[in-house]
């Protein structure tokens, strides 16, 4: 049995399925109750589970994340919502200094089964403080897991997998993908483990690694490349920590060309980190320089022409891939 839903809708579906199975799972966040969330990603949950399990908070992200941490330590499985990933800035200490380290600092006395969901990314005209690729703020902080689903199936399976995970998971839902549709199988089989990449499209000429919005653009680019005889393999890592390096290395063994596409500046990004890992650990697999197609080093601008230019386009991916294959 399966349903067709969009990316936005499947969020509530995944949470509801976990909440039905496990009474320790609850939600905490701003306007997630009767309002169903700023993006309606919690629609229906309040009606089904009530105010005890779907908890509307004041505007106080430090308290939200920290309360979720305290509850997780005590054995519950909170699903906290930070409305936009950018707002992780106001609770950054709680995430990196408290949530990420509590287990370690106590020498393993506790586990922290906590999921923090955030709306991510650019492309929707929300400007510099509501459009960032939040995943890159947390890469250097051991203790966190980071999930970046691009499809309905992955979102469903990974969100359930994250809630079941006994470690803190930062779960990024891309605002630009809310209307992407997909088919949701019901049942536990759909639950996905963290740390397994998805080979979205096979190919032998070049390996393109991309997440979320850029994964979709990369698939489009791969189609265009196919038309000119270039077989691109598109890999979506789906989780950044842990990262399925082996999947990329396997692909490079075939293609020997690496193109990473991301919607953020280069420095401190997951893409740069991947390029670094692949070149330090799999240098001899590469027959051409690795390539990292990124956004320019600027905040996200508001105007449509500027924001469009800020995001790597399908054309830019195609062009970069051609260059690389021609190297």
């Amino acid at each position: 049995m399966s349903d067709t839903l969009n990316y936005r809708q499947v969020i509530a579906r995944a949470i509801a399925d976990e909440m039905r199975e496990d009474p320790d799972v609850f939600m905490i966040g701003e306007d997630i109750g009767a309002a169903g969330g700023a993006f309606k990603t919690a629609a229906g949950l309040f009606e089904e589970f009530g105010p005890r399990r779907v908890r509307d908070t004041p505007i106080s992200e430090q308290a939200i994340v920290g309360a979720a941490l305290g509850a997780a330590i005590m054995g519950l499985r909170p699903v906290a919502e930070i409305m936009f990933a950018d707002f992780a800035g106001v609770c950054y200490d709680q995430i990196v200094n408290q949530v990420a380290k509590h287990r370690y600092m106590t020498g393993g006395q506790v586990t922290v089964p906590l999921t923090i969901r955030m709306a991510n990314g650019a492309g929707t005209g929300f400007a510099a403080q509501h459009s960032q690729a939040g995943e890159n703020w947390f890469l250097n902080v051991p203790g966190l897991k980071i999930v970046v689903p691009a499809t309905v199936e992955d979102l469903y399976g990974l969100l359930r997998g994250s809630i079941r995970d006994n470690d803190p998971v930062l779960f990024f839902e891309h605002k630009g993908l809310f209307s992407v549709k997909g088919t949701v199988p019901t049942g536990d089989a759909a639950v996905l483990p963290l740390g397994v990449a998805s080979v979205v499209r096979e190919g032998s000429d070049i390996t393109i690694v991309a997440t979320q919005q850029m994964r979709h653009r990369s698939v489009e680019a791969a189609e265009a490349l196919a038309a000119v005889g270039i077989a691109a393999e598109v890999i979506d890592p789906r989780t950044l920590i842990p990262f399925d390096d082996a999947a990329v290395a396997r692909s490079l063994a075939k293609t020997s060309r690496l193109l990473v596409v991301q919607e953020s500046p280069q420095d401190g990004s997951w893409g740069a980190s991947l390029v670094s890992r692949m070149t330090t650990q799999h240098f001899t697999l590469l027959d051409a320089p690795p390539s990292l197609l990124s956004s320019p080093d600027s905040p996200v601008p508001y105007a449509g022409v500027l924001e469009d230019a800020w995001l790597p386009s399908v054309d830019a991916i195609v062009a970069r891939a051609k260059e690389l294959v021609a190297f």
Partner: protein
Amino acid sequence: MTYHPVNPTLADPLPADALELLRSMYEIRFFEDEIMGLFSQNLVRGSTHLCQGQEAVTVGVCSALSPGDTMTCTYRGHGAVLAMGAPLDRAFGEILGRAGGLCGGKGGSMHLADVSVGALGSNAIVGGHLPTTVGAALAASYRGTSEVSVAFFGDGSTNIGAFHESLNLASIWKLPAIFVIENNQYGEYSTLASTTPIERLSDRAASYGMPGVFVDGNDVIAMRSATKTAVERARAGEGPTLIEADTYRHSGHSRSDPAKYRPEEEVKSWFARDPIVQLRNAIEASGGADAAAEVERTAHTDVDAARDLALTWPEPELSAGMEHIYS
């Protein structure tokens, strides 16, 4: 600290510049009508947050300021920025993402700024700009000059950490800052009572040893009067004031919110206290009917002309995206 009756109010003889206040409120009201129109034509990106119904707060407060004084506000900041004297056309231009916009199209609706008139910036992070106003006030104090700085923010914003830290620091240093809560009774969709365990937000001033004033935020004269007292106090080196303006937003939180969660009676009673209608009634009662009608008419014409002008402006050059990151 609870209810502080503030005089004069609309009930008293009107000030000489009553028509100016009316004009300013009309401009904001009509400006936002047009923004809604442009939004539905897909000419505005992201989201936009109207302050219609709250015009008396910003117009009243800003009319008590002098050149050199500064102001910071939120994403719901069209009114505040216009009340400081930002030009209508460039405000339209910004929201339209045009090169001639206040910020060259890089800010958009949530980030209007016109530093030349003291509008230092609109912030899209709840509470994020309160420290900026503390800093602007610190600059005056440091230099021994007399400028004050005002921060506007919502009722929901009084629960975030930056509010607490800002008021405390401003008070301990007796800085010339004025903190104005635009209490429009709701956060995004949450009622004040659901997020805040006290009724009178101005009572929080006591935690910082500063005066807390509760004012009818739909009475532009009362708002100005309360602000004047705060300004005098600030300029005299006696420190900051917290003003709670009791008001209401006419529409939903943002363009995507039909605001169905509000009781009909409540909406009705607040609309009956429309700040513009109230001032206009008072002006008409004191014999200014024709002049008021003329103000309304010219405000409308000016807003339309500004919109039309801004619509002729080009989009930014792509190179602008990489400007103004560093100096």
